């Protein structure tokens, strides 16, 4: 990727939630980069903070969330500096599109899908599409054709409950790209759908993103999916990005024990990963040192006291793990 000119750069981002027992850090030093037109997979078990990160990028943190530090740079500005009104007007939909996890719950049940999608375009359609409702309608119809909704004309007039989950998610894809954003955030866009539909939806998303040169952050807990569609992968564990690598390192070459375990097992529908013993720690009870330590097969004494630093293994591969850094350190003198 072109590290010089990323579209989105999340740097050392840290976020806490206010809980009964005080502030609990939910994201801690998250680093992430997405280049223009790139599809990034964001992977990790449930509860690792993926959705929280996506919400933070959109500026939609829940009440009681507090930014502890870091930056979210997008198109040259720090999104954390923008207030809600500006984010809503200038960033959402127009520059950063969003595809939700559960299309059944995310369409407003009382409004026709067409009017909901037109509402987005009304406020965020770029000038080249035009300002008129008919121009917006024309664009929507064309997109619905593209996402293979039968009879787009009548579909626009239907209510959400008249569609299947797969169709709703196609509509969500159309809505997300309608205003030609530079980046689309897709938060587990297929986990509410059945397996065959999953593949179709992701293939469609990839096809359209490539065609329009739209960057995508594809959030998932399924590393297998990522292998098919993503250019690069960032792995999150317990609110930290523990490893980032490009597609070609996927099959051999991933180094973090957590990533390796993710590769070895397939998630069930609920997102719990069989094969990795233990669970993701809750935000109020993070272990000291490396957060994966208590579950790690390669754990070292240092892991329980000190947090590993991010290590660049290659230009397209960074990892945070004492076992990995330790083996490098051990190797260096021998090579010299």
């Amino acid at each position, binding site marked *: 990727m072109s590290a010089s000119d990323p579209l989105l750069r999340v740097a050392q981002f840290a976020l806490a939630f206010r809980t009964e027992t005080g502030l609990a850090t939910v994201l801690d030093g998250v680093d992430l980069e997405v280049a223009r037109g790139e599809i990034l997979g964001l992977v990790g078990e449930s509860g690792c903070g993926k959705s929280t990160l996506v919400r933070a990028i959109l500026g939609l943190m829940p009440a009681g969330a507090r930014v502890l530090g870091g930056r979210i740079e997008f198109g040259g500005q720090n999104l954390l500096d923008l207030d809600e009104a500006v984010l809503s007007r200038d960033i959402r939909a127009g520059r950063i599109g969003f595809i939700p996890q559960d299309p059944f719950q995310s369409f*407003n049940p009382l409004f026709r899908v067409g009017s909901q999608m037109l509402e987005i375009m009304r406020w965020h359609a770029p000038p080249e599409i035009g300002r008129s409702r008919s121009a917006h309608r024309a664009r929507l119809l064309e997109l619905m054709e593209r996402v293979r909704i039968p009879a787009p004309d009548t579909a626009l007039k239907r209510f959400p409950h008249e569609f299947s989950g797969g169709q709703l998610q196609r509509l969500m894809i159309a809505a997300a790209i309608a205003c030609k954003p530079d980046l689309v955030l897709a938060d587990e866009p297929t986990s509410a759908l059945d397996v065959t539909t999953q593949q179709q939806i992701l293939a469609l998303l990839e096809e359209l993103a490539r065609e329009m040169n739209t960057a995508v952050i594809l959030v998932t807990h399924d590393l297998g999916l990522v292998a098919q569609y993503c250019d690069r992968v960032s792995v999150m564990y317990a609110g930290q990005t523990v490893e980032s690598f490009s597609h070609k390192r996927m099959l051999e070459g991933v180094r973090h024990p957590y990533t390796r375990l993710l590769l070895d097992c397939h998630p069930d529908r609920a997102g719990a990963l069989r094969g990795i013993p233990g669970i993701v720690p809750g935000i109020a009870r993070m272990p000291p040192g490396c957060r994966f330590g208590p579950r790690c097969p390669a754990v070292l004494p240092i892991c329980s006291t000190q947090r590993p630093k991010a290590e660049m293994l290659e230009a397209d591969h960074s990892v945070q793990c004492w076992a990995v850094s330790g083996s490098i350190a051990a190797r260096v003198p021998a090579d010299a």
Partner: protein
Amino acid sequence: MSLFIVRRLLLAIPALFGLVLLTFILIHAVPGDPAAVLAGDQATPQQIQALREHYGFDRPILEQFIRYVSQLASGSLGVSYMTQRQISTEIIERMPATFELTLFAMTLATAIGIPLGVISAYFHNRWLDHVLRIISIGGLAIASFWLAIMLQFTFSMELDLLPVHGRLSQGLTPPPFVTGMIVIDSLMAGRLDLFRDAFAHLILPGFALAVAPLATIMRFTRAAVLSTLRREYVFYERAVGYPRLVLMGKYVLRNSLVTPVTQIGLLLGAILGSAVVIEAIFDWPGLGSYAVLSIATADYQATLAVVLIVGCVYALINILVDLVHAAVDPRILEQL
């Protein structure tokens, strides 16, 4: 849909029958002798007994009830013992006054209660919300007859701003009868002077009547908006940048209306009850004061007729509420 209406109308009949039965029993359980009232102070016991036999007051209660119900079934509400006029005629004369008053009060309660509820929810747990909630608790706690008398005392007697009772000032003739509601008829006749006078008469009783339902509507709206705001689709609508006012005023409001609309239906029934008292205080020539008069004179059939009419209106309103639901929510429409 018409099947739905027919079914609901048929279902209302047993309920109304139960209502009449209950009222009948209650009337005969409380002391009061219509024959004695009719005969007057100077009457001899023989005269009273003759009246009793004439009207059948001496018959067993079951027989009286059966006679009354068969009279209803033949389409007659009976004749007033006091005025010797058809009760249906008297009710038709008085109904518009009550409709005018209750509709005005409900419009007031809805038009103020819903926005205040939305504002309260929007500023959830901030000071404005607290202030509004305290006011609404006050509105529920206050006795409407006390409020009515206080309003009369303050605005009519002390400040001399508004008329103290009646529907029109002395010396004014009502406009030609169209709906029977003077504020509407005067507008239709182009008589702004009459409209102003009639409207001034409406304000105090209308407000006294509106306070309790206003507080209820506000509380239900607030609760409904708060629950809507937690919905996934509201998150989506924010994530795709619906402007705040559009989101609250169009989408969230519509999703939140179902509960308050149900309440408005139920409150219309309750308000007809409080109208009895308010009409008596403001000397408002409607069904309420008619009911008070009929109870005071032991005019049983008139009392029963008012109860029955109010019951019918209540049943109709409930059907209407379901139809409004269907209009608001397409999923309900499908079930009708």
